[in-house]
């Protein structure tokens, strides 16, 4: 019995218990704790011979431990936050919560492809229950689109996985896959499959619908933890040198995604929607990091760590923001409580000495070291866009929360813990700590600050002279939702009523009757005639 088994089993058990005794929701909320513990003190990986195609679980690299750790942490805090929310009491919600959690943790501890796929699917599908929890048309439509794309992604991923397995000679261990090149189809299928989860452009369409529809803690884990799985999949499944397409393409795609998300995020009217677009934007950066790693396979280890840190940073900050946005919908943040929103936002925007700043520094360094250092200015411009989106989001949250009752700490302490942790994170993690040394130099500081200042200027300008609504509106259109409805209608087209075969057409019946009459009237004469005819056969014989 290995300790790793507890990682998925505990949430499952908690779910079962919670089904029977709904009051014990806390168990579910705390279910990621074994995973967190194992991320901190990891035992060796284990082979589990009796599970599907024999699997191997563990988290040996720092990369994996970071991922597992922040995911478990985010899930724990979001779970605790969700427990404080009175409207999230249904057993169904907690069941799906636990199942998504199981899937998410499983894919993180998976060392073999099958387990990863199992976890990935479980997470994907169970998340549907989280998105749809609040009921009503918007969640339903969002959920439908999500599910349609999730299933599509699942199937494409399956095909890609099969092709990849064929290429790798049916070896399931992911670590073995890095050195084996892959074909165009495999690349396309895997990237589509994972991309639909990761949500970079143009596969992001479900994200802006799902996040606002889901309850805030769910959005937090969705954005903070789950969509990372898509990028993780790409990272693990593709060879170190990337797929069939040139890494530059992926880099461009990532950057475009970053800008696209930011741009659309600026036009949103809902805080959570703006945050969702920001997630799209951030996923673009993650994709860009992956592309960088493909460009220079030698630097894979370092870029991998960067990827993990970026993900960690984004998870904590975005998780906090989503949870804050959820609270802001019903409560007013006053005084220092505003910091619970501002700090994560600023971190995301890349304020020095916060996690974002540290990560940005590392990212820029990485770009600088690569062949595409001439694209560095794009990253800076990206920071401006990110900051603008977050400004928009904060502004929207502020506008929402004004009318509501004050926020009490007893209702929001998990958020507070999360913010604090995100503040502490760069100091606790050695790699980030090193990056932050840069911030104490003026050049480093300026490099991070000027995009923020530009963004602040633009934001103020827009705030002072807001552009007319109609310029924004096109940004809010959602063709994907309409398409999803269309697909549903197409599928549910009723079958034609089964056409019963006609019991004998009249013409045919008439002939039959005539024949019957013929030989029933004169059986004797007819038979004798037949006899003669048969005798006539003698002529031919």
């Amino acid at each position, binding site marked *: 019995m290995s300790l790793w088994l507890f990682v998925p089993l505990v949430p499952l058990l908690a779910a079962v218990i919670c089904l029977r005794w709904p009051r014990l929701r806390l168990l579910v909320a705390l279910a990621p704790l074994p995973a967190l513990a194992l991320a901190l003190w990891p035992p060796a990986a284990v082979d589990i011979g009796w599970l599907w195609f024999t699997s191997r679980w563990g988290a040996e690299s720092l990369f994996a431990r970071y991922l597992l750790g922040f995911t478990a942490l985010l899930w724990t805090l979001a779970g605790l936050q969700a427990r404080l929310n009175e409207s999230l009491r249904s057993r169904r919600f907690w069941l799906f919560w636990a199942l998504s959690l199981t899937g998410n943790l499983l894919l993180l501890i998976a060392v073999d492809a099958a387990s990863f796929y199992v976890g990935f699917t479980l997470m994907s599908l169970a998340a549907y229950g989280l998105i749809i929890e609040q009921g009503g048309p918007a969640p339903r439509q969002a959920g439908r689109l999500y599910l349609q794309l999730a299933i599509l992604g699942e199937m494409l991923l399956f095909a890609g996985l099969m092709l990849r397995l064929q290429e790798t000679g049916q070896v399931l261990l992911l670590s073995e896959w890095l050195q084996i090149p892959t074909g165009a189809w495999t690349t396309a299928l895997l990237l589509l499959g994972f991309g639909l989860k990761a949500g970079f452009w143009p596969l992001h369409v479900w994200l802006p619908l799902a996040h606002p529809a889901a309850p805030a803690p769910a959005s937090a884990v969705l954005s903070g933890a789950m969509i990372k799985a898509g990028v993780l999949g790409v990272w693990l499944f593709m060879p170190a040198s990337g797929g069939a397409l040139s890494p530059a393409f992926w880099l461009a795609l990532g950057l475009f995604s970053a800008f696209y998300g930011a741009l659309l995020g600026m036009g949103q009217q809902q805080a959570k929607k703006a945050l969702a677009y920001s997630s799209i934007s951030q996923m673009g950066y993650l994709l860009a990091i992956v592309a960088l790693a493909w460009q220079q396979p030698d630097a894979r280890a370092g870029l991998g760590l960067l990827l993990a840190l970026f993900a960690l940073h984004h998870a904590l900050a975005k998780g906090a923001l989503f949870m804050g946005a959820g609270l802001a919908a019903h409560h007013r943040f006053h005084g220092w409580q505003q910091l619970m929103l501002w700090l994560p936002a600023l971190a995301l925007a890349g304020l020095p000495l916060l996690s974002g700043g540290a990560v940005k520094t590392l990212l820029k360094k990485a770009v600088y070291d690569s062949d595409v250092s001439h694209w560095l200015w794009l990253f800076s411009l990206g920071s401006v866009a990110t900051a603008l989106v977050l400004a928009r989001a904060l502004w929207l949250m502020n506008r929402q929360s004004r009318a509501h009752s004050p926020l009490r700490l007893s209702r929001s302490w998990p958020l507070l813990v999360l913010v604090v942790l995100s503040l502490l994170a760069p100091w606790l993690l050695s790699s980030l700590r090193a990056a932050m040394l840069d911030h104490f130099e003026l050049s480093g500081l300026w490099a991070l600050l000027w995009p923020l200042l530009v963004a602040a200027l633009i934001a103020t300008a827009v705030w002072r002279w807001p552009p007319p609504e109609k310029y924004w509106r096109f940004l809010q259109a959602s063709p994907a939702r309409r398409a999803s409805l269309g697909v549903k209608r197409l599928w549910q087209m009723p079958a034609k009523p089964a056409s019963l075969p006609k019991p004998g057409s009249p013409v045919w019946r008439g002939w039959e009757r005539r024949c019957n009459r013929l030989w029933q009237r004169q059986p*004797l*004469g007819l038979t*004798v*005639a037949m*006899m*003669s005819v048969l005798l006539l056969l003698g002529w031919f014989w």
Partner: protein
Amino acid sequence: MSQTLFYLLVGAGLWLLGLHGLLCLRQPLRRIMAVNIMGSGVFMVMLALAVRPDSPDPVLQALIVTGLVVAASATALALRLASADRDRAQKTAEEGE
């Protein structure tokens, strides 16, 4: 043409005549007579064979006797059956009226 052959042909002709009668006629009594004429045709053939000049054949003659009796018995039954059927038809018709 020898006598035997002539009567053989007559027999065949009778047989075919009977066949033709059975083919065309509808009245039960006529049909029965047609069958009898067919029979006579066969017996004629057999007899012509039996009395071929070089070897008169008692076996064949005995066969004809047997055949005659069989034919007569069958005819008796057929006639009775025809009458009974006719009787039934009449009765049904009367009941129908």
